[in-house]
């Protein structure tokens, strides 16, 4: 009955002590504060004069908590010692279980006996702190009065207590990791929102480097653009810890061949390396590829002093930041390509109008001016010189025929009437008939295509036939079109000399812009000596209305 009462009292005290420690841990206490609380609770619970908490670091133990009853020796927090000999902590580490020593005579080595004498110890118990099955540290309690050993089983109480302390440590670490993951996810989400909102790419990259640096606890984070040659990169954005040497954005540099940056650029995968630089000394560096639209754009690297390398898996975390950077860069490129293509479309339209004005002015208008002069002349000659007048009339008639033909040609250039009146097939047939190179037409289109698609196809065929006649030295051209699933496809093949200059031809470029404006793809294959193939695929989106067929 008495024993039961004592046990209950002890249990209650133990639970209260653990609650205090758990509250302490939950408050995010640092290791030293936790150890101070644990040792003072142990000391009081077990009626000890000293209590210690040590952390195992490789082959040594570091004292992280040292409690003494009033009047005891000064605390030894921070001291590190190897656990050779037969000390209580050595026994705990070696057996991974609790241990007890009831008198100096029990100690089997001289080292341990000397140490006991120094510390004035008379009895000790110890137990391991096991985290994930590994010895994380050791807790000990000691008494300093002679013939006052711990009661039987006290070492087991200490072990049970240590188990609960270990649980508290594990929980705290898990909580810290969860908090890290939450912080990282929230940073990534914020940046992703910025990317989606089309924030300026420089802002996004600034956030990527700063957030990656903060969350990976790096000294610096650098985003480099690959300049096309393997050993030269340009710094696009950089962040560095306020106490670290800054990295200049915009600078070009040549990374060490063994550097993480080079490994990323060579493999397209994440990497880890040690790098030495005059400004930073030796660093631990991790790198991740920046890949946008399946193209390797550059690398994101983070560095830390070599003494505290990045934890395993940090490369993958960095990669998630690199992916956001890639997205932002790819978006920006798509935007600027779109702007360039719009500008080209506008310019092409302006140039077309200019050409039309010039053609009208130099062609039909000039001929009509001459005709007007001729008619005036005719008026005055009619009576005076009938023969001359007849001749003048014949000339005027010829001039008028030419002017009419020129006007017809111009009107066709403005917009082929046959296309809007009769549709694509007759319009392409008409082009084929006018072509100086024989043309085979195979159009397998059941329903009329959307007007914009028909116009695009028409101009592609028109330009391709003109090129085949002018530059390709072709003897035959095949024009074919078909609908495949939700797209319309057009192919124009010739058997000419190939080697068409795609960059130089504004006509070809303009056709590409026209097709891409409809969400389509435009490809020209023109290997020297093997003909030219132009392929156009345009998706038949719902918002492209079919071509209305008008009577004409």
């Amino acid at each position, binding site marked *: 009955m008495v024993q039961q009462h004592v046990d209950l009292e002890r249990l209650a005290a133990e639970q209260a002590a653990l609650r205090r420690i758990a509250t302490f841990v939950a408050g995010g206490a640092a290791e030293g504060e936790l150890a101070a609380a644990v040792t003072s609770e142990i000391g009081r619970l077990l009626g000890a004069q000293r209590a210690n908490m040590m952390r195992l670091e490789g082959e040594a133990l570091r004292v992280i908590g040292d409690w003494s009853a009033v009047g005891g020796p000064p605390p030894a927090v921070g001291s590190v010692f190897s656990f050779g000999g037969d000390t209580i902590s050595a026994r705990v580490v070696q057996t991974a279980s609790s241990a007890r020593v009831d008198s100096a005579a029990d100690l089997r080595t001289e080292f341990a006996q000397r140490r006991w004498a120094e510390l004035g110890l008379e009895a000790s118990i110890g137990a391991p702190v096991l985290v994930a099955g590994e010895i994380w540290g050791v807790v000990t309690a000691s008494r300093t009065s002679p013939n006052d050993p711990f009661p039987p089983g006290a070492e087991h109480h200490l072990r049970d207590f240590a188990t609960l302390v270990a649980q508290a440590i594990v929980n705290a670490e898990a909580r810290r990791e969860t908090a890290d993951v939450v912080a990282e996810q929230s940073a990534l989400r914020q940046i992703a929102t910025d990317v989606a909102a089309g924030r300026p790419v420089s802002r996004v990259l600034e956030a990527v480097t700063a957030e990656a640096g903060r969350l990976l606890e790096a000294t610096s984070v650098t985003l480099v653009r690959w300049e096309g040659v393997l050993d030269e990169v340009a710094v696009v954005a950089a962040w560095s810890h306020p106490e670290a040497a800054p990295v200049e954005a915009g600078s070009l540099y040549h990374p060490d061949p063994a550097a993480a940056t080079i490994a990323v650029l060579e493999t397209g995968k994440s990497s880890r390396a040690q790098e030495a630089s005059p400004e930073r000394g030796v660093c631990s560096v991790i790198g991740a590829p920046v890949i946008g639209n399946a193209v390797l754009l550059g690398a994101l690297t983070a560095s830390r002093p070599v003494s505290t390398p990045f934890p395993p898996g940090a490369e993958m975390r960095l990669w998630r930041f690199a992916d956001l950077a890639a997205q932002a860069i790819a978006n920006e490129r798509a935007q600027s390509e779109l702007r360039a293509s719009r500008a080209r479309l506008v310019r092409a339209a302006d140039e077309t109008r200019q050409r039309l004005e010039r053609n009208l*002015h*130099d062609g039909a*208008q*000039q*001929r009509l*001016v*001459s005709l*007007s*002069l*001729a008619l*005036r*002349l005719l008026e005055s000659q009619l009576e005076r010189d009938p023969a001359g007048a007849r001749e*003048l009339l014949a000339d005027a008639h010829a*001039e008028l025929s030419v002017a009419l033909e020129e006007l017809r040609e111009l009107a066709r250039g403005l917009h082929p009437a046959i296309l809007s009146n009769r549709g694509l097939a007759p319009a392409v047939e008409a082009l084929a008939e006018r072509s100086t190179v024989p043309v085979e037409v195979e159009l397998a289109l059941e329903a009329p295509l959307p007007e914009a698609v028909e116009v695009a196809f028409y101009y592609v065929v028109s330009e391709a036939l003109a090129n085949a006649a002018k530059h390709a030295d072709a003897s035959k051209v095949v024009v074919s079109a078909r609908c495949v699933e939700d797209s319309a496809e057009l192919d124009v093949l010739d058997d000419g000399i190939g080697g068409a200059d795609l960059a130089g031809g504004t006509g070809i470029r303009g056709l590409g812009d026209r097709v891409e404006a409809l969400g389509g793809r435009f490809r020209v294959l023109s290997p020297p000596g093997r003909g030219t193939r132009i392929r156009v695929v345009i998706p038949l989106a719902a918002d492209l209305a079919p071509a209305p067929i008008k009577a004409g």
Partner: protein
Amino acid sequence: VQSLLIVDDHPSFRTMARETLSRRFTVVGEAADGAEALDLAARLHPDVVLLDVHLPDIDGFDVAEALTRQDEPPVVVLTSSRHRSDLPPLARTCHAHGFIDKEELTAEALAELVRARL
């Protein structure tokens, strides 16, 4: 009868202009561009030059200025198939002595302009 040089890059216009104007002028030459115009004017010393504003090489206004800097400069009359309002105001202040719309070109109209200037 005054001598005349016709400068225009369209042969059909030059032919009609020669026919139209030969009743009052002696057409001494035809030029198809600015360089040829300056060359012929220096050699033939025409009294009058009928000068198209739009020439393939040198701008008609510049040709006019060069012509008026010659010794014994000719009377320069600009012409164009564009309307007067489509031409820069320079047409009124430059070195030419007059402007005539192409479709209003008659020997009388040109002679009138030249007489006003001489």
